[in-house]
């Protein structure tokens, strides 16, 4: 089993990563909080689902969040690339609806490298791109005693092994901690 601390927060900084599943939003916010600094969130304008700042302020300081709403996916990618290249934010999160083409994925990868910024794409399941550095699948898990338990599965890793971890949010330490498996 891979060591969690070696994998999270994302080992190869300045690359493009992907996350899917119902817990993706939580993954993005906890990552943003872990990295510190301003976060740019790019999404399409028509979406009715929206993040709730009062809710995520427990994990992530909403003062650091900047939201950009674009017309369609191409514009989302444009904005994300420009932000990655500028290097003035620490994390760029983009919500994608359509699969990323190989060219687009590679361009984002290069932009992230140029600007020394990490990119995170929130995708639907089975929509992953080959260019991505790691792909995570996050889902909440029912636990009668704990209401922040999540199962994070690393399903693709270009430079390491895969793994599955049960993690929860420690409200006092304000960070992610791994729950040991021995209890089961």
């Amino acid at each position, binding site marked *: 089993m891979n060591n969690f601390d070696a994998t999270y927060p994302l080992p190869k900084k300045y690359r493009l990563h992907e996350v899917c599943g*119902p*817990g993706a*939003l*939580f993954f993005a*916010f906890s990552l943003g909080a872990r990295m510190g600094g*301003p976060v*740019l969130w790019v999404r399409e*304008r028509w979406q*009715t*689902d*929206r*993040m*709730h*700042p*009062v*809710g*995520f*302020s*427990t*994990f992530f*300081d*909403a*003062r*650091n*969040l*900047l*939201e*950009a*709403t*674009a*017309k369609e996916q191409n*514009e989302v990618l*444009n*904005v994300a690339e*420009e*932000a990655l290249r*500028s*290097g*003035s*934010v620490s994390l760029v999160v983009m919500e994608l609806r359509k699969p990323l083409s190989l060219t687009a994925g590679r361009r984002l990868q290069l932009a992230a490298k140029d600007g020394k910024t990490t990119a995170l794409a929130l995708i639907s399941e089975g929509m992953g791109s080959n260019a991505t550095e790691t792909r995570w699948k996050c*889902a*909440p*898990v*029912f636990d*009668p005693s704990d*209401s*922040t338990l*999540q199962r994070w599965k690393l399903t693709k890793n270009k430079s390491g092994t895969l793994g599955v971890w049960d993690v929860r*949010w420690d409200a006092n330490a304000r960070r992610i901690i791994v729950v040991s498996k021995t209890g089961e």
Partner: protein
Amino acid sequence: MQTRVVSLWFPRLASDRALRAWPVDAPFALTLEQNNANRLYCLNQRAQQQGLHRGMSYSDARAFCANLQSRAADVSADQRFQRALARWATRYCPWVGTEGDDGLVLNITGAAHLFGGEAALLSDMRQRLTRAGLSVCIGLADTRGAAWGLAHYGEGCAAPGQTLNSIAALPMAALRLDDKTNVALQRLGLRRIADLAVLPRPTVTRRFGPEVLLRLDQALGDQPEQISPLSDPPHYGVRITLPDPIGLSADVMAGTQRLLEQLCAKLKAQEMGARILRLTLRRVDQTHQEVELRLARSLRDTARILPLFQRGVDRVDAGFGIDQLRLEATQVEALPLQQINHASTRKNEGLDDLITRLGARIGLENLQRFLPADSHIPERSFIIASAAYSAPAGPWVTMRPRPIRLFPPESIGGTGTRPPLHFRWRRMSLTTGRATGPERIAPEWWLSDENWRSGLRDYWKVDTRQGRRLWLFYTPQSPGWFVQGEFA
């Protein structure tokens, strides 16, 4: 040509301005904090008839006149209004200045015939001002001093060359003397200007100094007196015309840099910063190409603004060449000089520039940030503000757990006041594992909201056995169950 000067005095400028916006049919006064008390600053005619006067304390005024209506005075808005009136008065003559904080002075020499003579000009002026709801006293004379005296103490018109005759009967205060000198003159029995004019000059100067005779001479025209017109607002535009047309984007950028340096120096001198810049490129075929730059923060730094133009300039079609560049700051904001020290943070500059560049791509209004708002209604517990025109605010306070994601309520067919044990949501069948609640939130009756027509809501946090943690609510007043959010 004989100089002719009109003096306009608005005895109730501040209250007239306030009443223009919200008319009141009662005694009315504006109050201002002066000398450690809330005092009457300006009042309307009905309040004056009740025996109230300026400078009276507001509590006294309320005792005298129970139905007195009042508002707080806004001195800076009054000043702006006076300047607006001065601008309006340039319809009569180009030479308009302000007089104190409640008057205007116009040099109408050679302009009166355009309105059919002086009498017609004055009546036109009075008619328009009265229609605008302003009470006005007008004086017309050969000099500024005499016109001022006539406006304040007699409201008349002195025929050309008849200045002394017209103002002879006015009280001494019409000479714009300070109170102390005025009282001293009264004590000597000099009540009217005529009394002063006949005195031998050396005795007056010896007793009162040069001030009194200076004012008299100014009123009679023996001493000149300036009227300073309002200065034009500074214009933030520069241009460069080229002997030969250019077409390379590097050349255009070099030209833009020269213009920016000039413009930024101008902005710096006025302590202003540009918010919107427009670069107009004139081509040799007399057509124009425009590049507009909306900045996320007011700036006057050439090195920072210039790279932001690059994207716009690259898109310009130069055609047969560009022979004139014109740069204008179409929107400016005050940007005071700041001390630079080692503690000043420069880390946000990059973010501001990024906002500017992204704003040029998708529109500045599509870059937003969240600001906290004071409401229990989940949809209204935050404000979405334009990132360019707001600063991050906080802290965010969460009294009770709130979902990380919100969506419009989605109905699930459930009954009863406890969360349903099994339900279907988004084509998933879910089983309730644990439910926390209820938390009752009542609609805000002072705001009408379509979504809250169904009345009270009892919110439950439901942990399903399948993993998803949802925010459900029950509406007891029109029974039904809905999902509105999802927790982390």
